[in-house]
């Protein structure tokens, strides 16, 4: 097991290397540099050149990259010129709201989707099933920003139940923290729920017509036990993969939702650092996000083993 995890983590290194190289090249090739963004619209070319030289951005690509790469190996991810802090501390800071939001949104998505998915599969072909399927298709088709704006207008501007935007840190109290996160989490949760409902439904449909279910019923087990224990457990790997993917996409930052609701998370950091050409932050965020995504997938793979012993890593 440990060996398997280690192997997976080691296989990350070439991925990260290629990703970092490509990103560095892309950022290097797009015109405009941090100095242009830092000095504003009416800065003279001389001023921009001077600041670029000062910051070391006038050096050749390879020199810059090797310099950055050796620093990263030493644990120094560079410093942001705009945030006046190191990249690692910036990522640590911006990751907290994203993590909170992702967990909250995932909980909402699970609360909505698992019962709905089970019910739809169980009542296959009925009006209830049809409604669930239609709603989940609609949910996947609806652009996230539209849903966000609708929720913002309805619950924020019209009903005044929730703040329209902003973020309260956990240190301001759990209630306040969740109150600010509720609308964005609901918006993200609904979209994820739409996907998860369909996955739950289809994986359950497959198992519900298997022979062992017939057997379980035949030997007189209660319906609840048949569905919740036998069917659901056997459908779990598919659902888990879907949940893992959905959590992976939530935790790596949701640019649009975070920007709309003004949540200082990874998504917002990504967008603003690209606009500012804040090279080291872009690099740091991309590598961090890649890492996160791979780790989430790894955890999902390991979890398979708990739902289905046949899939335990290391078993032939």
């Amino acid at each position: 097991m440990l060996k398997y995890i280690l192997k997976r983590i080691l296989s990350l290194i070439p991925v990260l290397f290629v990703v970092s190289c490509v990103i560095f090249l892309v950022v290097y090739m797009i015109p405009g540099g941090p100095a242009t963004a830092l000095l504003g619209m009416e800065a003279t070319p001389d001023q921009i050149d001077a600041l670029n030289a000062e910051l070391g951005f006038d050096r050749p690509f390879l020199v810059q990259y090797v310099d950055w790469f050796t620093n990263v190996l030493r644990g120094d991810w560079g410093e942001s010129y705009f945030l006046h802090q190191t990249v690692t501390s910036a990522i640590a800071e911006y990751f907290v709201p994203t993590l909170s939001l992702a967990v909250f949104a995932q909980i909402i998505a699970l609360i909505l989707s698992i019962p709905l998915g089970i019910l739809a599969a169980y009542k296959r072909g009925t009006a209830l099933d049809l409604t669930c399927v239609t709603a989940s298709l609609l949910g996947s088709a609806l652009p996230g920003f539209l849903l966000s704006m609708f929720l913002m207008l309805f619950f924020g501007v019209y009903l005044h139940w929730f703040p329209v935007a902003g973020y309260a840190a956990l240190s301001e109290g759990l209630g306040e923290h969740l109150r600010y996160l509720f609308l964005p989490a609901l918006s993200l949760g609904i979209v994820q729920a739409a996907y998860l409902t369909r996955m739950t439904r289809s994986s359950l449909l497959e198992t519900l017509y298997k022979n062992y279910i017939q057997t379980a019923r035949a030997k007189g087990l209660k319906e609840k036990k048949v569905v919740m224990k036998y069917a659901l457990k056997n459908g779990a790997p598919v659902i888990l993969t879907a949940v893992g993917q959905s959590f992976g996409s939530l935790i790596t930052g949701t640019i649009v939702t975070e920007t709309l609701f003004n949540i200082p998370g990874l998504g917002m950091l990504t967008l603003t650092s690209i606009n500012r050409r804040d090279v080291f932050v872009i690099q740091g965020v991309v590598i961090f996000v890649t890492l996160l995504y791979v780790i989430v997938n790894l955890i999902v793979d390991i979890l398979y083993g708990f739902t289905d012993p046949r899939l335990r890593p290391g078993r032939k």
Partner: protein
Amino acid sequence: MKRKPLFGAAALLMSTALVLAGCGGGNSDSGSGGSGDSASKNKEELHVAISANPPSLDPQSINSNIVGGIGVHVYEPLFAMNADYEPTPVLAESYEVSDDGMVYTIKLRQGVKFHNGEEMTADDVVASMNRWIEVSAKANTLIGGSVFEKVDDYTVNLKVNQASSDIIMILASPIQAAAIYPAEVVESATAEGISEYIGTGPYKVSEWKQDQYVKLEAYEDYQPSEGEASGLAGEKQAATPTIYYDVVTDASTRIAGVQSGEYDISEEIPIDNYEDLSSDNGLTLKVDRGGTLNLFLDTTEGVMANQTFRQAVLAALNCDDIMLAAYGNPDLYELNASWSDPTDTQWGTDEGSEYYNQQDTEKAKELLAEAGYNNEKVVLVTTQDYPEMYNATLVVQEELKQAGINAEVETYDFSTFMEHRSDPQQFDMFITSNSYNMLPIQLSVLDSGWAGLNAPEVTEGITAIRAASSDEEAAEAWADLQTFLYEYGAATVLGHYTGVIAMDKGVTGYDYLRFPIYWNVTASE
């Protein structure tokens, strides 16, 4: 039993929502304990939604409206503009000029304290002002080489590089302002700017959370200068104890936020929303004239080097259509050939207006023929990051095509656009919106680094304005230079734009001079 999961889920979600919604309300009235709750109930916190995270809080070096707008609340200069655009002493008490106009002796106010509790003395002023002359591009081009020297603790001398009637005005320019910092802050500053934000203003920076907010708190030992509040000078009260500048990059969020009461004031309301919001009874909209939308022409490369061709371009423009496309509503712009604020009594002039807004396609065609134009491609570079610049560019392209010019538009993101803009080989024309300057000699169009205009007439014109012995003479010299800009076809004003700020009906005391001014603002509960 079968329906249980669905109902359970719905019930759980609803109850979470209601509990969370119930938590609210304790947000803004948390600090209302101490002060008198008798007469008017004003908020203790003012929330202002701004459109971008300030790149720094160093107004000396950064040419940014957001930095400048926050900066005027925190830092003060020796002189500042009052509502009539007259330089008025703020940290200075008085000044005298030597007979040859080369030495300014400036007396400082005594007993003024920085936010760190230390008294402001000549050492701080000398260090700050000498840094300012170096790092502020606006100052450097005009009075570079001038030096501040200490005479005694409350007197400094300014030895200027060249006698001019506008020295005190330059010291009072609000953008890239001559903010006075403590000497030790200046000494520890790097190329990226200062790292401590200490001034003498009515508010001190209490917290800056990147990408979230800048929190200002009233400075209890603030020493206001005498005289009634007027523009950026006079009495500043810090009427609301705390100001939050909330960074809200998305415009629709700024709008929803001011409508819901999350923010008391939202800056940079997009023009598209102007009509919608003006029918909202809970809001007041402030429309302040902000600057000019300009078309700059390359004067050096290929067909653009031909003055007759450039004249053809100016002849083809219909500025009303361009401004309407850019700003959407005739209430929000004004057509005027002046490069300065038309209401500015000294510098507002419509000299050269025969070249402005000509709407004469026939004349353009004739001039093209005369210039020997042979359907060479002409490139307009622009960026969609500033919708007004982009929309105006599309209309200009259409109008140029009508006249028979092979005009093409290239669109980039902002940073790339700026890169193209600074190199005449990479553009033929471009449009930018530029905020007003206090002095016309500070205009970007006169800077050869902006759009490559490098004519001797410009340098001569600037010298004439600066060497003028009276305000009238200076105004006349500027009118001549403005005429030259039009005649030469170097650039044209397209029109004057306004900025829209939305605020709650309960907000009073708002003022505007180059930046929104909040130090006398209160918001009722």
